[in-house]
């Protein structure tokens, strides 16, 4: 494995909307199978980074490589789990329909689903413990169940890189736990995961690497290195409170 190029490389990337650049001169690379927490204050550019990584936002400058090739050469190796607010929950699709969408790339855009596709969908539904909801419309689900649907779809996509935007926000504890369980399963399969989160506790405890952003890269590395006080102060500024015992609290509101 070690002779392969790094799974994901970002070189001097400027990313933004129209004339406005949100992220300046971003450079980092993520090895195979690692789990990266993307942290930073609101509006720091976490979602913007993900949009660039899925190819939704063009780069102003710089380059992104996946498996050593420019972004876009691999069609189906990046999966993205959106924030719950980004999804139109009133759309008339069932849980199974949504998970099957994750197979469209594999099965071709014009033919019917193969038996293998159906098996992969069944397995993904079972793994996220939502097989019994397969025929339910997504609008009839609870928040946690809704999130599992998209996790199951990401599984069905069989990705090499998984991006998740705030999967720990606004969901119940069982869903948080099954999300973390899924991350463990994915690591066993050598899948690289990047997860944007507000929860610095989970980030420090459960992740291999942290990427601290505030319109530019402030720190990237193991949590213990990244969470040094001057780094965190630089990212969060006055929203950071340092307690007497050295622990830090970030006020997001």
């Amino acid at each position, binding site marked *: 494995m070690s002779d392969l190029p790094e799974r994901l490389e970002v070189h001097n990337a400027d990313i933004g909307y129209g004339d406005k650049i949100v992220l300046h001169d971003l450079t980092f690379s993520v090895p195979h199978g690692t789990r990266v927490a993307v942290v930073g204050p609101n509006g720091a550019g976490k979602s913007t980074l993900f949009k660039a990584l*899925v190819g939704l936002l063009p780069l102003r400058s710089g380059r992104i490589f996946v498996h050593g090739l420019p972004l*876009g050469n691999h069609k189906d190796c990046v*999966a993205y789990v959106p924030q719950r607010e980004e999804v139109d929950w009133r759309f*008339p699709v069932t849980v199974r329909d*949504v998970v099957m969408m994750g197979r*469209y790339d594999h099965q071709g855009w014009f033919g019917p689903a193969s038996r293998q596709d159906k098996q992969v969908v069944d397995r993904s539904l079972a793994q996220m413990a939502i097989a019994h909801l397969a025929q339910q419309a997504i609008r009839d689900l609870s928040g946690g169940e809704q999130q599992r649907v998209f996790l199951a779809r990401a599984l069905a996509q069989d990705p090499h890189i998984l991006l998740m935007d705030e999967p720990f926000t606004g969901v119940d504890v069982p869903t948080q736990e099954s999300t973390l369980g899924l991350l463990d399963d994915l690591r066993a399969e050598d899948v690289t995961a990047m997860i944007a989160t507000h929860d610095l506790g989970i980030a420090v405890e459960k992740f291999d690497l942290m990427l601290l952003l505030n319109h530019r890269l402030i720190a990237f590395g193991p949590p213990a290195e990244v969470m040094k006080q001057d780094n965190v102060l630089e990212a969060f500024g006055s929203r950071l409170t340092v307690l007497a015992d050295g622990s830090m609290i970030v006020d997001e509101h």
Partner: protein
Amino acid sequence: MSWLLEPLQYAFMTRAFAASVIVGVLCAVMGTYVVLRGMAFLGDAMAHAILPGVAIAYLLQGNLLIGALVAALVIAVTIGLLSRQGTIKEDTAIGILFAAALSLGVALISSMKSYAVDLGHILFGDVLGVSPADLWLTTGLGLAVLVTVVLLYKPFLVISFDPVLAATMRLPADLLRMLMLILLALTVVVSLQTVGVGLAAAMLVTPAATAYLLTRRLLPMMLIAALLGALSSVVGLYVSYYANVVSGAAIVLTATAFFLLAWLFNARKGVLRRRSQTE
């Protein structure tokens, strides 16, 4: 049952039935995307914006449908390009284009001598005046749109439900959106003959919205909408024949009646569901 067969002895009536069923089905199927993607305003605007094309075709004594077709395609492409730039909001772009095109159409038509009659036909349809050639054109365009929608079912589903997934899968989303606008334009042109520019939006939105109340999956929604669209057209034409009202209006009112029924059914079901939960 002779009253059911009576209208069919006239060739113009059988053509009217054929044309309005095609339009009913077509509008309902495209209407599913119109409802789900929130393009109702766009559909209405497009219907009005083809007026100058019709007027110019009339002035040149060409085929009105072809005039409408050219205008609709120009409008679809212009809206697609304007809203892609992102300098003004899409609904603003649509509003400006639609008002300007409608005014141009009215100005052109009012400059003609006998405009009163023809304007009425364009605004509210003239299904009894469908010629055999019109019917062929309607059938051909209708089939082309339906085949495209069937072939592109999966890509259209993904760009409508989840644009980010479309991006990760490298779907040509801009191209597909433009194609959808063009299909919508063709649909509006075809419906010109039966319900007119004034009521085309209703045929796009109402059967699809009715179907949305009755099912929670996309494919059944399309099929139910198509059935309702066809049924509204047939019932509406009978009503128009016997009650002697304008056919376009009768068709749209029938579709609206179906919607109200579904809405009441849905509301009652909602009440029942709530009641069973509290027990």
